[in-house]
């Protein structure tokens, strides 16, 4: 009896106010309450991608892995759940993906432009949009060393990116050294975050879009167009070249082949003629006079019949010309 009465008082001020209906009721009520509070404050679960950081009276004791765990209730031990080292966080600069809420809402346009506009090493202006991905490597450092780590990461990212871009020309930022710049940003950010002891590891830095400022963009497009135009002109010329030259080469070969054909023809004919002449001459040499006469007479007898107008003139005949003229005037008609 006394024992039960003590326990009900034990719980302190609140219970004191309630007018007791019956001692038994109070005892049951108090026991149930204690059990419920014990139940709800003495266990916790850590999800797969999380870790739990446990503090006893505000002092760090341990870090727990995913699963069901128990702790001392009544606020003696508290648990802070944070994303583990496999979870990748993402901070965007100069742009926001549609689903990213909270920070996105306020003063969007102006804010983003001042985030992305930066001076290059040749004192030009570029707009740089980039994304930083990071992990919490050391939950203890992450929770206890720096207040507002997200803000710190953003400040560091902006400062480092401008520093790196400030050491590159506008051409390098736009085209030539984008990967190199991203890598430098990553390295420098990591170094600074380490000196702040953030427990953060930069996973990746990616330059999304590096552009000329809005106003300069049409001029830059003109450069691109002009470059394409240049390439087109060169291609056209090369095309014409490739069309004409092989054809000319073919024709040249043809000319040469024809000449070679001619040469062969000439030489073969010459050889043939020479051989023929030799053969004939060999035979002729044996009986020169007769052969000569024979050839002569054979030729004459072949020619003679074909000719219609033949005049045989006595070797002593004079005035041949007159005779011919006469014939020409009358005879032919």
């Amino acid at each position: 009896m006394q024992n039960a009465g003590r326990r009900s008082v034990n719980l302190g001020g609140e219970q004191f106010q309630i007018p007791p209906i019956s001692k038994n009721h109070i005892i049951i009520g108090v026991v149930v309450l204690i059990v419920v509070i014990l139940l709800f404050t003495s266990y916790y679960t850590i999800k797969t991608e999380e870790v739990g950081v446990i503090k006893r009276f505000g002092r760090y004791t341990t870090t727990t892995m995913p699963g069901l765990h128990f702790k001392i209730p009544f606020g003696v031990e508290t648990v802070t759940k944070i994303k583990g080292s496999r979870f990748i966080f993402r901070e965007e600069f100069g742009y926001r993906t549609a689903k990213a809420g909270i920070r996105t809402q306020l003063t969007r346009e102006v804010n983003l432009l001042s985030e992305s506009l930066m001076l290059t090493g040749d004192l030009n202006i570029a707009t740089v949009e980039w994304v930083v991905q990071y992990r919490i490597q050391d939950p203890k450092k992450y929770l206890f060393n720096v207040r507002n780590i997200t803000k710190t990461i953003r400040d560091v990212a902006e400062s480092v990116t401008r520093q790196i871009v400030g050491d590159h020309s506008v051409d390098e930022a736009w085209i030539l050294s984008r990967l190199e710049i991203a890598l430098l940003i990553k390295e420098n950010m990591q170094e600074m975050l380490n000196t702040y002891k953030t427990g953060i590891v930069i996973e990746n830095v990616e330059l999304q879009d590096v552009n000329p400022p809005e106003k300069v963009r049409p001029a830059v497009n003109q450069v691109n167009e002009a470059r394409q135009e240049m390439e087109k002109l060169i291609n056209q010329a090369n095309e014409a070249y490739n069309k004409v030259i092989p054809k000319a080469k073919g024709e040249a070969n043809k000319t040469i082949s024809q000449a070679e054909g001619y040469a062969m023809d000439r030489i073969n004919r010459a050889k043939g003629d020479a051989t023929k002449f030799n053969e004939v001459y060999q035979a002729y040499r044996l009986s020169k006079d007769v052969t000569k006469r024979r050839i002569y007479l054979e030729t004459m007898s072949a020619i003679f019949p074909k000719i219609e107008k033949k005049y045989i003139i006595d070797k002593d005949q004079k005035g041949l010309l007159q005779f011919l003229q006469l014939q020409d005037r009358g005879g032919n008609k």
Partner: protein
Amino acid sequence: MNRGKISIYIIVIALFLLFIVLSSAIYTIDMTQQVVITQFGRPIGDPINEAGIHIKMPFIQNVTYFEKRLLEWDGNPSEILANDKKFILVDTYARWKITDPLKFFKSVVDENGAQTRLDNVIEAATRDMITTNVLIEVVRNSNRKMAISEIEADVGAEAVVDSIHVGRTKIAKRILNASKDKVNEYGIELVDVRIKRLNYIRDVREKVFERMIAERLKIAEKYRSEGMGKKAEVEGEMEKELQQITSEAYRTAQEIKGKADAKAIKIYAQAYERDPEFYSFTKSLESYRQTLDEKTWLILSTDSDYLKYLKDVNAK
């Protein structure tokens, strides 16, 4: 029964009082906190920064909590005239922590107070540093040789040739060093100061845009003329090669033909030289066969070899 009841009430009251006293005497400090104990508003003893459970005098002593973590400071963008008379917007950030909560508490009271002091100190140091340096010193960090695309080098794109002596990181470091000592007296350690953003003021920015546009247009023009030039070059090359190919072919053909002709001549000569008289005889006769036809008038004297027997059987 009555006496028992009274003793229960006494125990209850005693426990209640003990609870009140304990809850005022016991306090906890989180990992992220440090405290200063005050008595009637006056700080007592050394600050405590060890996390865990602690005890103080109940009721008369109070606990004031301070952050132990690295804290943010974000400057306002301010227009500053660089040493080369260029107006720029400079936005800095800093990280600091409360290293001496007692000093901190006595001098600036709370974080708001600290922020104001930091504003004054860092912004002044920033202004000093920027005004004594030219713009390029703040923009660049090293004398790294920057690449510009070839064609831009051709049109003389304004490549910065000025080399720097200080550079962005060192300027930030100097701002840090200049500010560090001044905030030390507030129990604050300034851990880092960095230049976050740097930009031209609006008017200058417009001018820079104009310059960039002009440069780009020049480059575009360069590309166009380069294209036409290259085209003409290729066309010229083509013309040349064409002439070369055809003329070389002609030359070779003529050489071949000439050699063949020469050889033929030699062959003929070799053969015919053995008896030129016989050659001209046979060739002439052959020629007669080919050239004399029915339209030819043939006037032959009885003197000729062919007809000589017509007149004289014994002709010689």
